[in-house]
């Protein structure tokens, strides 16, 4: 189920502006890969290119190849809607659907794929997704309550449950803990560790301790200069990137000399 992602010669544009340039990388399956780098370096943009959410913004497009399981996501015959059903996403701020209950939120993605689902099947999907997101124990008594009534950390875990309920091949996380307190953050990090047994996970983070704690591999993005596109500077095992990086810029960033 979990698949690796091969990116070849990827350029990402917002209209005329080239935001990210010439990315070549292979993100391994069933591992956690962290994207780090200073603000505006294109790591979130690159993440959104991995499930074609980038092109939701008017005028935005990419040039290059993104292969998941050998299939190019940007091939002409590929429907972005189908891509997003295979590559799930968790956002920076928790965004459960405010008009839906906790139950409806978790099942929302399944309802899109498979309108006619038996009640018992739906119940099973909701329970297993919430259990996988470590939220079942906290909400099983109040599944019919609005998702927006939960705490921020619980909402974010609800969003993770919603994303994994459709059993994607890849799970993208765009700074999933930046709006959360340390305890909720720790809960999400534990969850990421558990999830990587079944999913390929890519996480963007500004928190380098977090990258070091949760990820197996790390990609460092940086700007060549102001107004220039962001680039992938270095990619490798997290242990190596944080102890003995090949590039000077990586070392400067990791050690807090800039960014």
């Amino acid at each position: 189920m979990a698949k690796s992602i091969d990116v070849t010669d990827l350029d990402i544009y917002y209209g005329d502006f080239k935001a990210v340039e010439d990315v070549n990388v292979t993100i391994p399956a069933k591992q956690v890969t962290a994207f780090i780098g200073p603000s505006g370096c294109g790591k979130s943009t690159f993440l959104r290119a991995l499930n074609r959410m980038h092109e939701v913004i008017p005028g935005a497009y990419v040039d290059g190849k993104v292969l998941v399981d050998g299939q190019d996501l940007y091939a002409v015959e590929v429907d972005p809607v189908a891509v997003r059903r295979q590559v799930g996403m968790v956002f920076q701020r928790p965004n459960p659907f405010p008009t839906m209950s906790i139950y409806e939120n978790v099942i929302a993605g399944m309802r899109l794929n498979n309108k006619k689902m038996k009640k018992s099947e739906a119940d099973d999907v909701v329970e297993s997704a919430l259990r996988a997101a470590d939220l079942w124990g906290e909400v099983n008594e109040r599944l019919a309550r609005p998702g927006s009534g939960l705490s921020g950390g619980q909402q974010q875990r609800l969003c993770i449950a919603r994303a994994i309920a459709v059993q994607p091949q890849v799970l993208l996380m765009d700074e999933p803990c930046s709006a959360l307190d340390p305890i909720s953050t720790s809960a999400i990090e534990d969850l990421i560790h558990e999830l990587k047994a079944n999913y390929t996970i890519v996480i963007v983070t500004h928190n380098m301790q977090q990258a070091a704690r949760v990820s197996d591999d790390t990609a460092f993005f940086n700007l060549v200069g102001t107004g220039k596109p962001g680039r992938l500077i270095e990619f490798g095992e997290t242990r190596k990137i944080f102890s003995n990086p090949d590039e000077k810029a990586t070392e400067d960033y990791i050690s807090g000399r800039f960014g």
Partner: protein
Amino acid sequence: MADSSNELTRPVKRLGDRIFSGTALGAGVLILVTLAGVGLFLTIEGLPGFTADSSATQPADNFVGLAGPLVFGTVLSATLALMLAVPLAVGVALFISHYAPRRLSQGLGYLVDLLAAVPSVVYGLWGIIFLAPKLVPIYRWLENNVGWIPFFSGPTLASGRNMATVAVVLAVMILPIITAICREIFLQTPTLHEEAALALGATRWEMIRMAVFPYGRSGIVSAAMLGLGRALGETLAVTLVLSPAILYSFNFIGAQNPSTIASNIALQFPEASGLEVSVLIATGLVLFLITFVVNFAARAVVNRRSEFSGAN
């Protein structure tokens, strides 16, 4: 020391604060006073009308006989108009907010706003001169093919001046205001919710159903109620199009159509005197109360699931 503690305990009041709170309070009170004044006027002036005898309530025998069909006609025409206008308005608003290319959507938006500013007498004239004759073939078809449905039993007049034409004219009149409000509300859907739906693999229509409609639901209801308010009170367009009668009829394309309260007042007031005036004002009071009930009902609908509204 005494000075500094004094400074902390003394409330800070700037001139701007005082002016603002004063004008805000004044404006709020003014609305209530105006509303109470209108209500009071209608009640005092209209009270004798409720008990008027048949001399003042022609062609009916008493007040209820006159006001009943008028209320019926008012509610019927406004409801029909709303049923035609709301789906169309939501569709147009969605097209402008989520489907049309940006340049086109701006032009369309201006156009809709412009339509809202056209005076109702113009819509009335357009309805009677242009629209009604064009609709006659449709009425004929309905009469001949589905005439067994009481709504379309006919007989259709060649002029096309009937309840169905009124409903269409009213629908066109209230369409812009409903569209404009819906468009604004749809545009305010948080990007976060839209992206949440898209990231789950929703198509654009599924995204609209998952994120845009739930977020805009109370706004759509409010927009519809504003439109309904305008349709309920519309005078000129109805007066121009309809050949009025005092009766109950669900025959939308027939020769005899129930008039509306506002239209009836406009038609009868110039020649009314004494108790007849009171009767007309009493029907006005009834219209006033109907709009109140409609608004409260709309509020109730909106509040029913308020904890799911996203406001918390």
